[in-house]
């Protein structure tokens, strides 16, 4: 390991135009020839920091030096000129093109400056493949390639342009365990040949296995930088997650009743066709809040969608109140008593250009008392909306205001009002307080607790650990489509949760 700095980021701050603060003064140093892991939960700021290093984003404040030279990147082009390349989580590949075409795009070797010289490009790629062990067929179309191979194309793309520093954002999320081993061999090979690698991940074991040093981030700040030799998952987990868990809300003692939701051997595919949920088994009983924690992208969305009629269950069964509702459509689930607070209220939960009242009746527009198949009772609908505004403390000038003008907190209240208004037995709440202010957050959590006290059940999926620990009676941590473990919140410490979120089952 050399001691010169491949990259030196000093006091980097980033505040977005809408006021969100992503980075609060981060110092990050990268030594030449090392493999450096950058770990943290969702929202810690790791991807933001790397996007700044790659020139995709500009910092609001701070200085950046590459090999001692101060730089000001306007575009990834500048980063690449300085030898910095990045492979993002969502690949920037053109599916219809071949591997060669993708690799040379933007830096095409040309004869007379016009015609692309594919032959020399293919040769160069083959040489790189030999050198690094990243084998690809240059003539094959990217679309048909398995994701692991597509990743190799992305890496080759950077190497082709002479990147000496490689940023890899969650690279193993698309690899099987065997592929991960090979991948690590390749990374080590790259390092031995003089390249520097940043490995962004939330997987603790992998970070320890592959890296020389580890930087831990939390809530826009760096909480620690350690040598991986001599460090343990426990230490990392503490730095990643450690904060005082505030148990502000009062949780009453409730006797748990009969099973309301029974999930047996659930298998669900993701959009890419792979299995995102792998054989889940669990039961949620009346009077219980079952919390599912975990870093996003481990199957939560697919789980939620499979339980709310929006995604196909490939294998397994789902029962509500004893009735088999596997693959039932949304309106049938509503009839059986399932409510859903969707994680993306703008996409799924609300029609932004509809007014408050219209959103409240979405799904019930042709049912009594709001209407029949042929007519809607506007009077009833608007009266109901007025009541709901009071009952759910929605801050809106009237029931006729278009929902897009309301704040996120009030929008969420409308979603909650709608779902609760149908008196469900069971609610699936996905990231229910995301993007909400403190008041709205407390409001939503109180509602969920009230449901629990009323003998109903809640399946709570959240990447907010405070929320999960405060509200849940039992906590499951999901990792790569399966539950690492299911525990009572009292038994959990920040460290244990951190471990589980990183894929490690704690001993005790």
């Amino acid at each position, binding site marked *: 390991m050399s001691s010169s700095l491949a990259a030196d980021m000093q006091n980097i701050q980033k505040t977005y135009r809408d006021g969100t603060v992503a980075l609060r003064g981060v110092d990050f140093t990268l030594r030449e020839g090392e493999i450096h892991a950058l770990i943290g939960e969702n929202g810690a700021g790791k991807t933001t920091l790397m996007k700044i290093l790659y020139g*995709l984003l500009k910092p609001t404040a701070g200085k950046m030096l590459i090999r001692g030279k101060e730089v000001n990147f306007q*575009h*990834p*082009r500048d980063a690449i000129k300085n030898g910095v390349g990045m492979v993002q989580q969502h690949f*920037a*590949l*053109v*599916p*219809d*093109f071949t591997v060669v*075409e993708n690799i*040379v*795009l*933007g*830096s*095409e070797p*040309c004869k007379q*400056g*016009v*015609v*692309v010289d594919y032959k020399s490009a293919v040769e160069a790629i083959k040489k790189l493949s030999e050198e690094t062990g990243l084998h690809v067929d240059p003539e094959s179309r990217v679309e048909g390639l398995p994701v692991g191979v597509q990743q190799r194309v992305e890496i080759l793309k950077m190497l082709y342009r002479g990147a000496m520093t490689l940023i890899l954002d969650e690279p193993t999320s698309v690899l099987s365990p065997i592929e991960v081993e090979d991948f690590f061999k390749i990374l080590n090979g790259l390092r031995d040949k003089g390249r520097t690698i940043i490995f962004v991940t939330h997987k603790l074991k992998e970070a320890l296995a592959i890296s020389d040093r580890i930087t831990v981030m939390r809530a826009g700040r760096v909480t620690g930088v350690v040598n991986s030799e001599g460090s343990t998952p426990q230490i990392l987990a503490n730095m990643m997650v450690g904060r005082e868990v505030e148990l502000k809300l009062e949780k009453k003692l409730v006797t748990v009743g009969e099973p309301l939701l029974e999930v047996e051997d659930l298998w669900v595919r993701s959009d890419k066709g792979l299995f995102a949920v792998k054989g889940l088994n669990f039961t949620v009983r009346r009077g219980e809040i079952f919390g599912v924690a975990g870093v996003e992208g481990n199957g939560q969305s697919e789980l939620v969608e499979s339980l709310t009629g929006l995604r196909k269950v490939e294998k397994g069964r789902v029962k509500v109140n004893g009735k088999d509702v596997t693959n039932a459509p949304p309106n049938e689930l509503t009839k059986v008593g399932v409510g859903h607070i969707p994680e993306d209220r703008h996409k799924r939960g609300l029609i932004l250009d509809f007014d408050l009242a219209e959103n409240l009746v979405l799904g019930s527009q042709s049912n009594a008392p709001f209407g029949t198949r042929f007519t809607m009772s506007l009077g009833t609908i608007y009266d109901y909306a007025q009541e709901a505004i009071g009952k759910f403390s929605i801050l809106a000038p009237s029931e006729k205001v278009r929902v897009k003008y309301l704040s996120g907190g009030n929008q969420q209240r409308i979603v909650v009002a709608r779902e609760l208004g149908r008196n469900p037995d069971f609610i699936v709440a996905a990231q229910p307080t995301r993007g909400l202010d403190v008041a709205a957050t407390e409001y939503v959590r109180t509602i969920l607790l009230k449901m629990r006290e009323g003998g109903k059940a809640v399946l709570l999926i959240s990447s907010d650990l405070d929320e999960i620990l405060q509200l849940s009676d039992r906590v499951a941590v999901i990792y790569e489509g399966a539950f690492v473990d299911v525990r009572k919140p009292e038994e959990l410490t920040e460290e244990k949760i951190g471990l589980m979120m990183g894929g490690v089952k704690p001993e005790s």
Partner: protein
Amino acid sequence: MVEVNLFDAAFIMSLLAAMLRLSVPIVFTGIGEVIAERAGVVNIGIEGVMLLGAFSATYVSYFTGDAWLGVLVAIIIGILSGYIHGVIAISFKGDQIVSGVGMNMFAYGFTAAWLIVIWGELAAGNSPYVPRIPQIPLPLPGAFSSISPFIILMILTAVASYYILHKTKFGLRLRSIGENPAAADVAGINVYRVQYIATIIGAVLAAVGGAYLAVDWNSMFVRYMTAGRGFIALATVVFSNWNPLLVLVGGLLFGFADGLQIRLAPALGVGFPPQFLQMVPYILTLIVVTGAIGRAKPPAAVGKPYEKE
């Protein structure tokens, strides 16, 4: 009733010649739209651009006596129209279809009105005769005794477009924008500029196709003379799977259908209703567009304005 032997050599020759000649406007316009759509921009207004090209070529040819000059001016009109559509679709990120429909309506109205403005009340249906593009004489009999230079240009354009799209740096970058503009952007390509260029090229080719109709195939401007050929060109784009060489094939197919109804109807006699033959190109288009001939795959990001994050 005129008795015609349908398998008479002369008749077949005249049919083939008609097929070639009628394919030209569709091929030019179709190739232009392929280029634009491969860069992600849809221009439904090419029917209108064709009309504008036809009209301007007629106008210039009438007043200068030079049909080629007319084509040149049509090209300029094409550049302007393409630029306007680009401003709305690319810079303002407006609705590409609505903008195209507006362009069509404008062209229909403007050209029909200006016929009268320039040539008076009597010209409501069509302009007077104007000088035509000189044809190239061939040592062949009958219908092929001369050939339009545009036929050659058409083939050259198809080959050149294919070559540019698939072999050159510019073509690679253009195609990447139509499939994944974000990837192109990250690779350092100026997405908006390339889209503008593609849209303008598309409009220029459409204008040339229209000019051909007025000062080569015909030698006057007839009100509404494009008769939906711009939309048939859109269908050819789908039929050709966004490949300029196949647009040539598709154009010939539609040209054949078009020629059929023009040549065959009188040949079959007064008693036979020509309308059904006239319907053939449109029904053919329907069939093509609904993928009855295999599913065509459009560029993945076509029609979606690109937002830089």
